[in-house]
């Protein structure tokens, strides 16, 4: 056979399969279901993101009004710092609608003030616990967990059904490239699933101004994931067994990869990488702050100056109460808890790193994590936000320390120079 005639026969085989499939109503039904679910998932994510964005807009305004009103009533730097709160937040990225990720249970907004940060940063204004437990229907969930099951339903009895119908051997004999007919059928059915799932995502992405590279990357991930399951399904459907045995085996595999491996992995990783208990961080910080009231003021100031030598010349406290001493022991409280707090962050990072490796053995988790990373709704994004809050809090201290330590005259006009929390810049 020449190359030309082989290409022709392949072309006619594709046409034949396409025509056959176009007549198969159950395939169309499944594709319709996928399209419907994808529209549902994308619009649910979309509405959630819009809710979050409008909430942030409301909060930014309310926070500004509240702070202005509070600052107007202040007579000294110390009480101004004590009474005024500052909003920090992590806006959803332009792809967050596809993978809402940790935004359900991890904090993405705070109002902080100049007191010890460790007492504030672990507060979380999280969503509803029952909703977080059941989990949302977003595109990542659909693609990672539901679509493999759809593929299993579509592909498990490719051969078995033909065998039952008595057409199997005839088909193989007449298809020219005998063995090719099954991959071809599987590929066509899988492509339909891919198109049904990806179309609403692309549409929403383009309408919402998501970077094209992000969308293409997401599609590539989705395609790779579907390809994996299609290969597994076609591979197993070659098994000379009844359709129901193949189906049971494939569902068992899905349970293994989507549920058992992740669950066992979580347990193993959490056990292997201990993190300090959060209660200990708060307790350490609180004890330090409380003890300061009983300690000689010079002890606190010495501990403070050790880290902030630039204020050494202004560290003497003569009065029974001085705001600079008050904020110094807040800072010392943070310093005492710093090791624990850093270990808490490092532990979470390490757990996440191991989870990333483990995800390689569980494709659904790999896809979900990858989409969340793309959408910046994963742990790394959450830790990056935490780092921004810490940096902002440090800049608040930088604003007030010179005024408190040099005992500058109170001047409300200076508040225009108050640091402003900036959401992350750049494309995301």
């Amino acid at each position, binding site marked *: 056979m020449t190359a030309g005639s082989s290409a022709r026969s392949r072309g006619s085989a594709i046409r034949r399969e396409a025509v056959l499939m176009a007549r198969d109503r159950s395939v169309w039904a499944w594709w319709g279901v996928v399209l419907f679910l994808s529209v549902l998932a994308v619009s649910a994510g979309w509405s959630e993101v819009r809710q979050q964005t409008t909430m942030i807009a409301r909060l930014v305004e*309310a926070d500004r009004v509240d702070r202005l009103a509070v600052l107007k009533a202040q007579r000294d730097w110390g009480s101004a710092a004590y009474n005024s709160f500052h909003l920090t937040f992590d806006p959803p990225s332009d792809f967050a609608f596809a993978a809402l990720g940790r935004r359900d249970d991890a904090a993405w907004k705070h109002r902080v003030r100049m007191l010890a940060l460790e007492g504030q940063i672990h507060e979380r204004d999280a969503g509803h616990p029952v909703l977080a437990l*059941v989990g949302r229907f977003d595109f990542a969930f659909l693609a990672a967990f539901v679509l493999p099951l*759809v593929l299993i339903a579509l592909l498990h009895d490719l051969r078995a059904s033909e065998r039952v119908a008595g057409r199997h051997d005839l088909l193989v004999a007449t298809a020219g490239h005998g063995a090719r007919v099954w991959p071809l059928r599987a590929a066509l059915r899988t492509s339909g699933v891919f198109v049904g799932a990806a179309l609403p995502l692309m549409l929403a992405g383009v309408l919402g101004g998501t970077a094209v590279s992000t969308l293409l990357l997401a599609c590539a991930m989705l395609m790779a994931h579907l390809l994996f399951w299609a290969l597994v399904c076609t591979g197993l459907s070659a098994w000379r067994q009844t359709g129901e045995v193949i189906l049971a085996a494939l569902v068992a595999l899905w*349970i293994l990869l989507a549920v058992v491996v992740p669950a066992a992995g979580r347990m193993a990783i959490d056990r292997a990488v201990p993190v300090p208990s*959060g209660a200990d961080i708060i307790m350490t910080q609180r004890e330090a702050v409380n003890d300061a009231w009983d300690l000689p003021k010079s002890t606190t100031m010495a501990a403070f100056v050790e880290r902030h030598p630039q204020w050494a010349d202004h560290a003497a406290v003569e009065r029974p109460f001085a705001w600079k001493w008050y904020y110094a022991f807040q800072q010392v409280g943070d310093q005492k808890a710093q090791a624990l707090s850093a270990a808490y962050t490092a532990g979470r990072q390490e757990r996440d790193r*191991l989870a990333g490796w483990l995800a390689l053995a569980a494709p659904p988790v790999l896809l979900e994590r990858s989409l969340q990373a793309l959408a910046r709704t994963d742990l790394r994004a959450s830790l990056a936000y935490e780092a921004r809050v810490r940096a902002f809090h440090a800049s608040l201290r930088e604003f007030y320390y010179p005024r408190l330590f040099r005992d500058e005259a109170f001047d409300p006009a200076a508040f225009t120079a108050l640091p402003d929390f900036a959401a992350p810049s750049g494309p995301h």
Partner: protein
Amino acid sequence: MIARLLAIAGAEWRYGLRSRLALGGALLLAGLLVATTVLTALRIQGEATERAHHQTDADAAFLSQPDRHPHRMVHYGHYVFRTPAPLAVFDPGLDAVTGQSIFLEGHRQNTAMFASSIASADLGGMSWLSPAMVYQLFGPLLIILLGHGVIAREREAATLATLLAQGLSGRVLLVGKALALLSLVCVLLLPLALSAGLAVHAGEQPMAALALSGAYLLYLMVWGLLTLLASALLRRRAAVLATLAMLWIALTLVLPAVAVSAASALVPIAGKLETDLALLTDVRKLGDGHNANDPAFARLRADLLIQHGVQRVEDLPVNLRGVVAQYSEEKLTRTLNTYAQAQMAAEDRQAAALARYGWLTPLLAVADASRAVSGTDLAHHHRFLREAEALRYAFVQGLNRVHAEKLAYADDIRRSSDAQAERRTRVDATHWQLLERFRFQPDAAASRISQAAPQWWMLCVWCALLVAAGLVAAGRLRP
């Protein structure tokens, strides 16, 4: 009649036991159940020990504080930990997503912090596997796998025609098959009985353990009936299987998640930050309880002087500062509680909006019932918050009373400048004993069971409708 039913059910069992597929599926699920039961029990018991240990430490730390000014103890604060309910070994429920400890201090209501889901390795929502989740998600799968052929198989093998021709009524056949599925469900519930037995041993009321088994019995019966119905109505076995698989994906994976998205979009709740902004504005109007000269307390001061018939604050038999601290804490707490109750009510409304979808998917109904009966639901989380708040208020006001009654006002106002006066304002550390011990207990079994009243209705209505549909289908059973 009974003999016939038993014969049909017995034949179904013999068929099942000979089928490698059925046995393989059953063994896999049994393995999964046993593994999660053991691992969850170990994890929860570890958590329970750790939290009880933290609580003992926190109690000891508070009680071992030296003699000092009572208001210092108000700010020193206290920690409370929630230990898991005995049935949490089966259904940990909200344990992982809500904080399990609260820091209690004067003038503030803190949130429950450090949910374990925050620090745990992130491997997707399906990775919080518990025995409850295995039952909810995979129990139905096994029933489908084992039961989809009960009628369709006889039809494909043409034995259905023979059976009906021999004078066996469709109803008797279907009830016999249903009996087989019901006994399968009962066998499936054995690992649950084991977990429940462990919980009873750990102090759980047997009634709760029974109710929990009842909830899952109803849930699995719903799936058994759905399977039976599909098997009786559809002609081909493959079609039965495909239909039930689609139904399983829809009812256990898709609908619950869609319901979450719908509930959060339809019944949105304001976040804590938003309500806190309004709260702060209200609180600022109340005056600063640290400052007895705050104009907000002028009335209190005047009343106190008249009541005791004296001219000067120094002549009062009580310390004005302590009285002001008590008064302002009371007013502040009233405001804080108003907001906290509004927040809880909003959460309840959203949870109820989600729970209504239990009419559409029995998974949400059984999950709600399971959490309620296990004592790991939203109601128990809220009660933990309320009890922690009650304890906070009690010890803060207890300390404020000591402040008012044991300290001389003259010493109190001079304590920053006069070392002698400062020494006299330190009260004896035995006063710290006023702290109550915190031990969180789940509600009584009866109230937990009635908490899940809507869910019992949902599951029973599902069952009743399916039984009715099954009887209708059985009457029309054709080969």
